[in-house]
């Protein structure tokens, strides 16, 4: 018994046991339980198979939820990736000792808890006291119903998400940019490459892996976002701006139809699975490259 306890694999297993229990009991089990819950009727007395999924797919509101989730995630991630790329390049031009302060200031949106900074945005978009509208009125422009009209509400969500997530992209890209060897740029310059050529033939190929990992990761997080939509519009006006998470919350927690809520959130699963697969591939490919280097 003593010998058994001192064996390397036993010690290792015991050290991993809390982690295994956590993942098994609080991630895998709830995930499977969600699938089970999604196949019950509203009062959770009867098994209805895929009935809830069918019901959701027939509802016009849910079509809007799917459309809105994809629109939100794709637009916001694209905006964050482009702005982050631009910012990382601007930052890379600045000499090292000044970078710290700029980086520090630009990361603030990412550091403030999202639930709290979104309250600030909500107040900026307030229908009667909007500070943006005050500026527009001063400039003589018509005021904007920021959260009152579907199109503007969608724009506001994407704006807040972009504001929050761009610093993350900037930091990731900056780290990747710094790891590109300077000699490559020199070689490209000798070969007569201009700024565009360097970007196209050196920077992008060298950063490709980080770019794809960051974009896919952000796609998951943005797609599964809850906080911004919940605080800004809570799905309004007239349920036109719900995304999966907020709709699931409204169905499952507020209306008390747990199976329908579970089914709603499970619709995220296919996209998450595909993105996770490619992230994992990118990460292991990079690990192999690092091992080979």
């Amino acid at each position, binding site marked *: 018994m003593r010998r058994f306890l001192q064996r390397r694999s036993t010690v290792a297993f015991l050290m991993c046991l809390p982690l295994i229990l956590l993942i098994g009991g609080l991630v895998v089990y709830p995930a499977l339980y969600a699938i089970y819950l999604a196949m019950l009727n509203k009062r959770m007395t009867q098994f209805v198979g895929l009935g809830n999924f069918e019901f959701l797919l027939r509802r016009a509101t849910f079509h809007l939820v799917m459309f809105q989730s994809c629109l939100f995630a794709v637009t916001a991630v694209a905006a964050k990736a482009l702005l982050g790329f631009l910012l990382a390049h601007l930052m890379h031009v600045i000499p090292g000792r000044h970078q710290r302060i700029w980086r520090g200031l630009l*990361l603030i949106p990412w550091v403030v808890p999202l639930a709290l900074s979104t309250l600030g945005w909500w107040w900026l978009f307030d229908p009667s006291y909007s500070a943006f509208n005050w500026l527009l009125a001063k400039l003589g422009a018509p005021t904007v119903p920021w959260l009152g009209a579907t199109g503007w509400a969608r724009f506001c969500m994407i704006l807040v998400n972009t504001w929050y997530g761009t610093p993350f992209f900037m930091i990731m890209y900056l780290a990747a940019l710094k790891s590109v060897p300077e000699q490559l740029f020199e070689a490209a310059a000798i070969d007569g490459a201009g700024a565009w050529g360097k970007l196209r033939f050196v920077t992008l190929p060298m950063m490709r892996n980080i770019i794809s990992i960051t974009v896919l990761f952000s796609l998951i997080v943005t797609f599964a976002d809850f906080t911004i939509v919940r605080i800004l519009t809570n799905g309004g006006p007239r349920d036109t701006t719900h995304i999966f998470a907020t709709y699931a919350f409204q169905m499952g927690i507020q209306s008390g139809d747990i199976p329908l809520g579970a089914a709603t959130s499970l619709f995220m699963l296919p996209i998450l699975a595909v993105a996770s697969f490619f992230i994992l591939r990118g990460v292991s490919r990079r690990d192999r490259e690092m091992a080979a280097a």
Partner: protein
Amino acid sequence: MSAAASAAGTAATRRRRVPSLARQRRWALWGAYSALGVFVFMFLVPPFYMLVTSLKTSAEISEQRTSPWLVAHPTLANYFDLISNDNFRSFFLNSAKVTICVVALSMVISVLAAFALARMRFFGSSVLATGVFLTYLIPDSLLFIPFFRIIGKLGLVNNAWAMVLIYPTLAVPFCTWIMIGYFASIPKELDEAALIDGAGWLQMLFRIFIPVAMPGIIAATIFAFTVSWGQFIYPLAYLYSSDQMVLTVGIISDLIRADVFQWGKIMAGSLMAAAPPVVIYAFLMDYYIAGLTAGATKG
């Protein structure tokens, strides 16, 4: 760098007359500074406006003729009101209680597991490492409905301790992942030296790995702290009464009563609630960024 730049410069001179290289680079630098300045200005508009609003009285906030971006009679009344408010104090204490427990729990779990996964190969260890990474990609908005039922069955509805049970699922996978990277970067010779000196596995972990990987541990701790301090969907779904709420949900529910929005207090409360992560960030920025980019640049 300068060699590359001068090579590009001579190539360009052959084609047409260009201003001197130093001037060109100075322009690029000023361009970068001014563009970054514009971005910083835009990024800081919401926090600035929150600060301005928090310094106003309700009367000044509802005054429509003066500029909302300026404050005429700054007052700290909103802050003092909140500090002396029992509910707000209890939100703060609950947040602190939950966060401290979650950080301690998550770090113990992830350091132990990361050590075993980085150094002691055993049956299924690589599958487990991949599994940890995949768990990190499962979002909270997928799990909050089953947790609602599970918490109900455990009798922990409307109980802040339920958060201590759930939050580690958000922090542990990433913390384990970056700790595996840090531990794997420690040279194998150190273990061998320790083994020759007769150290056991636990001694090795506490005497060598934890001190050497301290930057990683700080980065992981900061991550666990920010995640549990700012978590929103779980407390919103499971906590109902003021004595159990944490800051992120307490501010909204307590300061908005029947369509009466106390905006000055909401902003003051948000800023005070945001202070702990921001202060930590201000002092430990390099560790914070190291944690953020751990997945990008190493292991």
